[in-house]
């Protein structure tokens, strides 16, 4: 695509001042989201996914947080925007759905009030019109008898319904970018599938770009158009869903995929080792302490320069550099039962009972 993407993040670095020192949560990452596509940020918890997305519209509290880099959204650099300007973008153009719908809604207000609040902050509409739209949205996200539920409080909704309410609230002002931060992690498996399907439908209906955060590659395989694999605040690999699932190139991506049921030999209990200390990141490749293919050069300098394996498919691993032999990494894990990321969806989500 030649023209500017909906969102382009360049060299984004977010740090926090803590008692233990300066914590680098996100360290110079790049990614972009086009209108109408779903980009998945993938990584273990603590890899900086949430901080990265919350840095886009500066939801991060500053201080202790500090955000650097370029965030181009619809032709504007959000890094240069003053707070009042950002406030107009938040909700109206970039909407968020958070991980835990239990805590993301205020327990003291009805869901109708909370949806109407989002509408009335950005648009000059009366109470009754905002209410009518809130009812319509509740219906759209699959709440039965929305007119009767509009005055209910969050505690009167199930977990899945609350997440639907959150989605309705996010959609209320017709945003161009929806940031969904692990929106299904706190939910039952059947409800998860329903919410994923809903988000996918709405993406098409509203023509939104979706930035979807998850650690669950099963979810990624169902919804992603493009994938960004994060590890300890750095991008390890990114590319189209087909690139990453069919030709996973980074040792970390391969290990993540190896943990996915149905692919490769089951490596018991995920990837051995833990994320490096973000206040004191290791020299060289961030993944080196846990990488089975690490060589001496991996522990020196910075994160290896990303190598473009095919257009748009970039990998940050030294073995793809000139003078190294990528064959030492072995064969990527084979994909069993995940023939086509999108085709899987119907069998997985079809015929689920309604949540509630």
């Amino acid at each position, binding site marked *: 695509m030649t023209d500017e993407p909906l969102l382009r993040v360049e060299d984004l670095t977010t740090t926090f001042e803590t008692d233990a020192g300066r914590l680098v949560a996100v360290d110079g990452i790049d990614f972009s989201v086009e209108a109408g596509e779903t980009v998945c940020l993938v990584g273990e918890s603590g890899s900086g996914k949430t901080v990265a997305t*919350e840095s886009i*519209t500066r*939801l991060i509290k500053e201080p202790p947080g500090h955000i650097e880099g370029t965030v181009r959204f619809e032709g504007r650099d959000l890094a240069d925007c003053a707070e009042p300007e950002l*406030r*107009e*973008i*938040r*909700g*109206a153009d970039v*909407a*968020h759905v*958070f991980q*835990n719908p239990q*805590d*993301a*809604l*205020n*327990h*003291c*207000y009805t869901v109708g009030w909370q949806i109407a*609040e*989002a509408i009335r*902050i*950005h648009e000059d509409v009366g109470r009754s019109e905002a209410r009518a739209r809130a009812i319509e949205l509740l219906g759209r996200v699959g709440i039965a008898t929305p007119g009767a539920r509009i005055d209910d*409080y969050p*505690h009167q909704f199930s977990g899945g319904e609350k997440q639907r309410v*959150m989605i309705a*609230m996010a959609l209320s002002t017709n945003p161009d970018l929806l940031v969904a931060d692990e929106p299904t992690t706190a939910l039952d498996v059947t409800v998860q599938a329903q919410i994923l399907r809903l988000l996918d439908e709405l993406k098409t209906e509203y023509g939104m770009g979706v930035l979807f955060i998850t650690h669950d590659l099963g979810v990624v395989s169902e919804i992603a158009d493009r994938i960004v694999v994060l590890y300890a605040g750095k991008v390890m690999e990114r590319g189209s869903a087909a690139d990453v699932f069919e030709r996973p190139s980074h040792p970390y991506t391969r290990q993540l995929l190896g943990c996915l049921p149905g692919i490769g030999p089951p490596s018991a209990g995920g990837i051995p080792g833990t994320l490096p200390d973000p206040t004191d990141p290791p020299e060289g490749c961030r993944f080196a302490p846990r990488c089975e293919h690490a060589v001496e050069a991996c522990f020196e300098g910075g994160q290896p320069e990303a190598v473009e394996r095919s257009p748009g498919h970039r990998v940050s691993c030294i073995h793809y550099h000139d003078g190294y032999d990528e064959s030492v990494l072995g064969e990527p894990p084979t994909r069993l039962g995940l023939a086509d990321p999108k085709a899987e969806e119907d069998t997985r989500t079809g015929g689920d009972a309604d949540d509630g």
Partner: protein
Amino acid sequence: MGLARYVVLRVVWAAVVSLVIVTATFVLMAAAPNPAIQEAATQAALEGGDPQQAVERERELRGLDEPLHVRYLDFLTSIYTLEWGWSDHRSQPVTEALVEGLYYTAQYSIPWTVLTVLIGPLVGVYSAANMYSWRDHAATAFAFFGYAIPNFFFGIVLLLLFGVWLDWIPVVYRTDVAVFSLENARQLALPVFVLVTGSIGAVMRVSRNESAEFRDATFMKTAKAKGVSPFRAYAYHVMRPTLVPLSTTLVSQLLAIFLGSSLLVEVVFGIPGLGRLTFEALVAQDTNLVLGATFVFTFVAVIGNLLEDIAFSVLDPRISYDDR
């Protein structure tokens, strides 16, 4: 709806509590020897009459010869019809004396309550929003000061400072000034200030700590992500949930100060309110008046607790009325 039913039940319960208190009072009074009868007997003996006869006459006069249940019903009727007897020491009906006292007590209690309710939560939430700033520390210091210093002592110090040395405010309380006048405002400023200082500390602390919790809640992030301004976020999303636990603190704090400290403050500032009236009735052994004042304080406490419970359930939508 559940809430209405709960409120009705709670009101009925408050009525039962007040009935229990009145009954307990009656039992105690009936069990204790009546000093008036002893006195009549002594009087008769001194005057050469028959003490036994005098006792009987006196008992008859006071209705003590009736069976217990009749006396109990009479007592109840008079209590609930506000016929609380004659105050010997004030030479006026007890209810009239109480209304007079209440009139002066209300003049400082209403401003003091309103100020506490308005300022306490605002300062507390502001403190939470600016936690560990110098303003927060100043507010905390003030809260602990008000908490720690005895009200009557603080009152005396202020009276000495502003009334005696600086001569800014009158030392002697005047009952002949109009309620809504500058003079009245001046003479009530110190007692109101003392009581606000005493009651606001706990209110500030609770609202600060509770709202600190809500300030960091995920729904605040949701609000920010929706484009809500920080002011609106605090005014609606933090203040509202804070009011739930705060309502309890507010009422109990106001009640504690009202029942505990207003007497001392009235004595210090010479206000002829309910507190001083009770105190003088006790000294003068004016049983009817002591009883009446006790009932007023008791009913204030019962109604305060009632309001506290109702406020709490109205404010917290998550409360299930069936479990209570």
